């Protein structure tokens, strides 16, 4: 079910009514049932993979939790008999037993993900190598990627690691855990929630609260606006440009880049608005995934404000453990004695950064363009880190740091950099991506834009007008949000005005939205990730 399909809206409406009708005690069970209905629409066989995940993290999580308990009990009972060394040794022993269980859980879950998502990628690479030796080709296997598997598996892995680290006790009730893993609004494209965060409201009893529900509905509406009016409309233009790289070079690549930046933002944040809005109408709080990312002044900052839950996931579960692991610290020590302090200090951070961005790229898609995209992100972040002394010198010399124009320059620079990297995401081929990117500088065809050629990429004058209006509205809303919640401000207006505004918004989405026959009904860009 797509978020923007009639059946999904019907599904939501039915769920919503039932949710506030059933006894509050079983609201969460109803939600669980709804998740499975939702998921079953994408094929019953996919459900099997999810059940394996749920069962494995429930069993192993509980086991690790029991080991925690037994350890604490043992230590409390033998407080007097054991010296510090013995206590430490005992802890280590328990820890290593727990680690084995954790690794088993990771093996099962990441294994499912790896096999389903990356088998064909591996085969393709093997075939390339065999091609060099003129050996025969292996055939691809047909594996359908279950919907949202990258998201729910990451969520489950996060839960496993947290339990292992003793951040919170494991969930005993398998149904509650199942609800956490399968919570339908975030199955499509995230956010990647944490158990300790989501469980605070997920299992609670919720009575109908007009204000929360209104806020949720407003958020959903705003998401639909972004998705249907802006993203799905501009998508036509983006596709025209990127599907014909031979023809659309030079300035068109730049246009395509910027259009894609708009499309991706509107589609992804719009989808997350719908997700968070749905949860809100049910009284559940899902973590924000974006913090006005296009106002970032550097790539590092951008990644702290874009797809936040993914960034923090990689930070907490890959970057931190990797960069302070024993081998890394050893490496740091060695490099320090060998190459001096400067290198020693950097080597762990930079090596971990590159590894994290390699995995981030791989997570986004099983192909080289995503890996190169990820690594380039890492390289840019490292470069800007290295340029820090220069920046400091520059800012000491010229005090422009807080001037509007300088900030504007930084924001534009970040946006352009991010968009350039995303070319790899557009063309899905490393060679073509680089060729297209460099054609921006070598092919001077800017004059074509004034000749009205932009009307030949599938967008009419009316489309451009709507897009201009939509993008302006998104920017205005973002700017306004710096002064606090827009919905709070709206709530203080008279009810008829609020009603009229809401209906006007519904009508704009209904009429101007790019849906139905004549427009490609598009899957969320993040759907398959």
């Amino acid at each position, binding site marked *: 079910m797509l978020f923007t399909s*009639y059946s999904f809206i019907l599904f939501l409406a039915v769920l919503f009514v039932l949710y506030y009708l059933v006894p509050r005690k079983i609201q969460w069970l109803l939600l669980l049932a709804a998740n499975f209905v939702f998921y079953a629409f994408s094929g019953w066989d996919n459900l099997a993979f999810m059940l394996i995940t749920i069962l494995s993290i429930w069993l192993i999580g509980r086991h690790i939790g029991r080991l925690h308990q037994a350890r604490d009990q043992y230590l409390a009972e033998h407080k007097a008999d054991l010296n510090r060394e013995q206590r430490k040794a005992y802890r280590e022993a328990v820890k290593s037993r727990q680690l084995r269980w954790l690794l088993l859980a990771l093996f099962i879950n990441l294994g499912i993900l790896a096999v389903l998502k990356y088998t064909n990628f591996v085969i393709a690479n093997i075939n390339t190598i065999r091609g060099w030796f003129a050996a025969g080709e292996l055939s691809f296997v047909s594996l359908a990627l279950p919907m949202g598997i990258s998201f729910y598996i990451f969520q489950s892995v996060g839960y496993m690691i947290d339990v292992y680290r003793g951040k919170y006790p494991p969930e005993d009730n398998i149904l509650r855990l199942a609800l956490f893993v399968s919570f339908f609004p975030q199955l499509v494209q995230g956010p990647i929630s944490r158990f300790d965060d989501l469980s605070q409201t997920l299992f609670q009893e919720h009575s109908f609260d007009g204000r929360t529900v209104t806020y949720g509905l407003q958020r959903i509406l705003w998401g639909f606006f972004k998705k249907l009016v802006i993203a799905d409309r501009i998508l036509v233009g983006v596709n025209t440009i990127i599907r014909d790289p031979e023809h659309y070079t030079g300035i068109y690549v730049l246009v395509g880049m910027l259009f894609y930046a708009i499309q991706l933002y509107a589609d992804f944040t719009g989808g997350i608005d719908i997700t968070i809005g749905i949860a809100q109408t049910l009284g559940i709080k899902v973590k924000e995934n974006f913090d006005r990312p296009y106002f970032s002044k550097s790539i590092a900052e951008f990644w702290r404000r874009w797809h936040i839950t993914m960034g923090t996931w990689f930070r907490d579960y890959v970057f931190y453990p990797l960069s302070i692991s024993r081998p890394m610290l050893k490496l740091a020590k060695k490099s320090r004695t060998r190459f001096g302090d400067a290198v020693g200090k950097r080597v762990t951070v930079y090596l971990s950064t590159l590894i994290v961005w390699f995995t981030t790229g791989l997570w986004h898609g099983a192909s080289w363009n995503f890996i190169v995209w990820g690594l380039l992100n890492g390289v840019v972040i490292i470069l800007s880190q290295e340029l820090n002394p220069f920046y400091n010198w520059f800012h000491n010399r010229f005090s422009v740091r807080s001037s509007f124009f300088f900030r504007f320059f930084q924001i534009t620079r970040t946006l352009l950099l991010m968009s350039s990297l995303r070319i790899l995401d557009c063309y899905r081929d490393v060679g073509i991506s680089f060729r297209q990117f460099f054609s921006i500088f070598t092919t001077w065809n800017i004059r074509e834009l004034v000749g009205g050629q932009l009307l030949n990429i599938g967008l009419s004058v*009316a489309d451009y007008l709507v897009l201009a209006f939509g993008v302006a509205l998104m920017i205005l809303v973002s700017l306004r949000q710096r002064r606090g919640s827009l919905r709070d401000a709206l709530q203080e207006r008279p009810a*008829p005005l609020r009603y009229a505004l809401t209906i006007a918004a519904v009508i704009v989405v*209904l*009429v101007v939205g790019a849906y*139905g*026959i004549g427009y490609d009904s598009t899957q969320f860009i993040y759907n398959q990730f």
Partner: protein
Amino acid sequence: MKRKKPLIIILLVILTIAFLALLQALLMPKFQTQLLEGGLIADYYQEQNKDHDVIFIGDCEVYEDFSPITLWEQYGITSYIRGSAQQLIWHSYYILEDTLRYETPDVVVFNILSMKYDEPQNEAYNRMALDAMPLSGTKLRAIKASMTEGEEWLSYIFPLLRYHSRWHELSAEDFEFLFRRNPVSHNGYLMRVDVKPVTSIPTPRPLPDYQFSDICYEYLDKITDLCRTNDVRLILIKAPSIYPYWYDQWDQQMVDYAARNDLLYINTLQHLEEIGIDYDTDTYDAGLHMNLSGAEKMSVYFGRILAEEYGLADRRGDDLLAARWNEKAAAYYRQQADQYLELETYGYLRAFRYQSD
């Protein structure tokens, strides 16, 4: 103050629904100056006096090839053509079912060309056949039977969902005909007076399989049964089109079907001389459809069968009816004169300029 609140809410809801309805009416295509065949189905529901001896169902081979005015003037038979562009057999069945909700004719005439189409062809023709039909169980079943892949049934119930993207191509026509519409046809007959003679007869390409599909027979059976249960006599007919080619193997199947079900089946292609069809003057598109001259000849021929073999009474003596039909005839001759004038002025008919068939 407190007591007023529910009242205001109800008022707001009504206002909202009214506004949405208005918006939907505005955005739906009007078919008043272009693509006139899109307005054929709506014409029927606008007809004040739904009491006809004969109802025609079928595609362009009925609404271009028969003239109810001629049937009236020559034989005093009242008729209505419930045709629409590319009307497929399930459309025909449900349109008949819907027509029977309003009246029960003596005779139903079905043009069997659509037997050759066994699956939905094009969303636009579904729209033309179904959009104007008032909501009913019949309509819901018709939608279900007709949808092409990727269509949403909800967008038939709320056509706003389908036509919303017309917001930027709204024209004066959409505002002018927001609350009213003019009939585009004469009891379902879409008039064209222009002429384009037949220049070549197509040589038929042999088909791998001539058997009409089961689904078409299923609906033909349903039409036959529906007529039988309502005590309506059914006539199957094939219009005199040169193209699409009507294969002998197809014809034989219809002959057999008619024999099996005790129906009259007329393949007018076999009676061209008797009808008096002249392919140099009686078609407007080189043999696909009849023009006015051809349609009138067809009606004269077919009316005789209805009157003599089916005993349909001459109702011209009914003064009230006659007055009504004279009015219709006047509009008919007015349009005829207009079209000749237009042909003289422009060399073509403006409403049909962009159409090939």
